């Protein structure tokens, strides 16, 4: 009986230890990275909470002339090519969200003054879901979505 409790206690402390190591590993990263990388946003499982942490708003409004280029059907969810473009002026940030993923926020692009609002990358998608693109200017946040059907999920294992 006592032994069994000991096992449970050990297991508990081991799990806590693993979390501690993970945090420690993060802390070992260069300070500049830590300062800039919005950990809370990218670890959020709720889209609204994640966006709030990342760009200060929970959702965008329609508009902004956003174009999302992505396949209608992705055979391999591990590699889904996505291009987000906007013709809005003064775009500062572009955010890509895969609504069906465990941690839905994929990427945030901060545009310099010379940048054209057009970015392409490849993302992982766990299942068939909407890709949400948000475009933020100085005072507005716009959003658009596009559904991608995923045949084989990219976050499994």
């Amino acid at each position, binding site marked *: 009986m006592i032994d069994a409790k000991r096992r449970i206690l050990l297991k508990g402390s081991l799990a806590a230890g693993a979390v501690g190591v993970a945090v420690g590993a993060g802390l070992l990263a260069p300070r500049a*990275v830590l300062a800039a990388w919005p950990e809370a946003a990218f670890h959020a499982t709720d889209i609204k909470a994640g966006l709030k942490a990342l760009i200060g708003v929970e959702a965008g409004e329609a508009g902004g002339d956003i174009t999302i280029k992505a396949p209608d059907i992705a055979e391999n969810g591990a590699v889904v090519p996505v291009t987000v473009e906007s013709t809005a002026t003064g775009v500062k940030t572009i955010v890509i969200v895969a609504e069906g993923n465990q*941690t839905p926020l*994929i990427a945030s692009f901060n545009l310099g003054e010379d*940048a*054209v609002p057009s970015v392409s*990358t490849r993302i992982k998608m766990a299942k068939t879901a909407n890709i949400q693109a948000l475009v933020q200017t100085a005072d507005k946040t716009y959003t658009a979505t596009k559904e991608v059907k995923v045949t084989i999920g990219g976050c499994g294992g």
Partner: protein
Amino acid sequence: MAGNIKIRAKAEGGETSVKALMTHPMETGLRKDKKTGEIVPAHFITEVTCKWKDKVVLTALWSGGVSQNPYLAYKFKGGQAGDPVELTWVDNKGGTETATDKIA
């Protein structure tokens, strides 16, 4: 761990488009190893900084949701043939790599 970065920059019609392909496992930290059943530790690029002549054009903040061996393409206004463009990534383990190219 670190491979190499392929980067190509091309100026056309007053805009420069840059395409880059990085080599990185991009582990989310959520995936389990099929053989051992243990979680594969997170190892992904968190930040990519893209410069044109020492001026930052684009900063990408990424999660593990970007595919393995990430591809990034972006555009900026201006840019002459021969101008240097630079791309640097940093990952969650503090690893980093930089590549440069001249605009064609």
